[in-house]
């Protein structure tokens, strides 16, 4: 099987929600000596991006996206250990979590999946996270972005608190803050001084890429 055909099969397995086929083709990539980074990017990530597009056009919904990500992670688990250290570029880090008082994490998980597929290193703090922890983790890990999610109106203020704490710590210029979730709007993001708002997981990837490339979002 040529590399291109293998990449296509990996991509199709992910977008087709087929964990078994992803496993088979990932193992074959290793057996054939294919560059694991290329297999991830041209195969798994390509499939996840296609799934993201289908999600945006409302052909896929959250259940389909979750199963695609299950397939993607199956492949990543096989391919990643074979990446040679010197070929592994330092990936930009993103601290992500659901703010304190809220435990709805489906939206956060989708954003995490899409950002991971886009090549970022994700530090997932989980749900119900105090503002200070986001800031501490971002400083500790040298993260470029903090991504905050909530579904509840009662917890929105905690997002503004994260921005304030970053300022107090003197690192506001080093860390971009993006927000999302049911009750959040771009108006709210502006008001609390966040760098951006995204209404969907695929859009969050574009937002982060824009912010980190210095282009105004």
């Amino acid at each position: 099987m040529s590399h291109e055909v293998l990449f296509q099969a990996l991509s199709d397995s992910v977008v087709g929600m087929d964990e078994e086929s992803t496993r088979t083709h990932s193992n074959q990539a290793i057996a054939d000596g294919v560059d694991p980074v290329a297999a991830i990017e041209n195969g798994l990530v390509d499939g996840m991006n296609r799934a993201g597009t289908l999600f945006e056009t409302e052909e896929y919904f959250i259940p389909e996206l979750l199963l695609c990500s299950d397939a993607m992670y199956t492949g990543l688990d096989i391919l990643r250990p074979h990446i040679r250290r010197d070929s592994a570029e330092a990936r930009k880090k993103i601290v992500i979590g659901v703010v304190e008082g809220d435990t709805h994490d489906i939206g956060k998980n989708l954003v995490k999946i899409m950002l991971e597929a886009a090549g970022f290193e994700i530090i997932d703090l989980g749900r119900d996270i105090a503002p200070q922890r986001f800031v501490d983790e971002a400083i500790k890990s040298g993260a470029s972005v903090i991504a905050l999610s909530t579904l509840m109106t009662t917890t929105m203020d905690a997002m503004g608190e994260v921005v304030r704490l970053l300022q107090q710590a003197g690192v506001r210029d080093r860390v971009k803050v993006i927000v999302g979730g049911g009750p959040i709007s771009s108006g709210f993001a502006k008001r609390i001084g966040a760098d951006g708002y995204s209404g969907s997981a695929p859009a969050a990837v574009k937002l982060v890429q824009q912010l980190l490339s210095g282009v105004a979002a």
Partner: protein
Amino acid sequence: MSRDRLSPLERLAAYVRGQPIDRLPCVPIVGNTAARLVGAKVSAFRGNGRLLANAHVAAYRRFGYDNIRIFTDLYTLAEAMGAQVHYPDDETAYLAAPALTTTEQIASLRSIDPAKDGNLPHHLEAMEIAFKAVGHEVPVTGALTGPFTTASFLIGADNLARLMLRDPAAVHRLVEIAFVNTLAYARAILATGASPSLTDAMCSSTVISPRQFREFGAPYLRRLVDFLHSQKRSVTLHICGKTHPIWTDMADTGADCLSLDNAAALADAKSAIGHRVRLMGNVPPSEIMLQGTPAQVRESVFTTVRAAADNPRGLVVASGCSLPVETPFANIDAMLDAVRELGWPVNSTALQSAN
């Protein structure tokens, strides 16, 4: 309610018959905001039906809206069936852990006794007290979470999402058990004099596909609506988030009124299904009702009225979803005031001038 010529029951009855009314029906969907009317913390509602009733009756008297809905959170039924719910001191409760982790456990789910299990008896007590106090002038309803949404709380939303594609038969077994218990709770609600008000949040097209809604959500809702119709009750069905791909399916459940979130365009819903169902919506609860000014609330009500006051089956001016707890009273007043200002038939001069 001296501010209005008609009582809510009189207004709704006349409106449905096409007779003259004083103003459009208006329902800012007050949930735990009611705690603020009686100076209580949200957690005080737990296990205290009398306080819950007093708060909702006080809120109704304070604002003069057209429907009382006894509601604290969406988890009451799932909790009675074994899900773990966390009750913060002064915020809305949330799901701490689902009742099940595997599909094998579905068969072990118990049938609820609404008089005993979880917080259900207290909610029922609240409905009974509120109905006795003001049921002669305003519809008193009790929130009833739909079977699919309860199923998602029983086994976890991620888990259920995967199962719909991997093991649809197990999902049907689970939703059927949720349905049987929903029906038992609906009967208990009816016995208090109140009517169930249906919410099936997880059926939203923001979460699952229209095809999945048609397979796992709609059939169970239709059976509930059929039952409630057999008991001579009118049914309002609320689904949050995006719903435009399933409007026809929602109307097909037989519901009399669809309550739509601000993610849905009321004018489009009117064209699509307005000849079949009354529409209820959809002033944004967070952006406008919580964070906006009274002037913005008025403007948003006018926008809603412009979009759908001519809906063939009528319009209830409402918030798109339950109001956030800390929604300012001034904004709730502003919502009612805007509807009163427009009157009925809607004062088109006032509507235009606000453009």
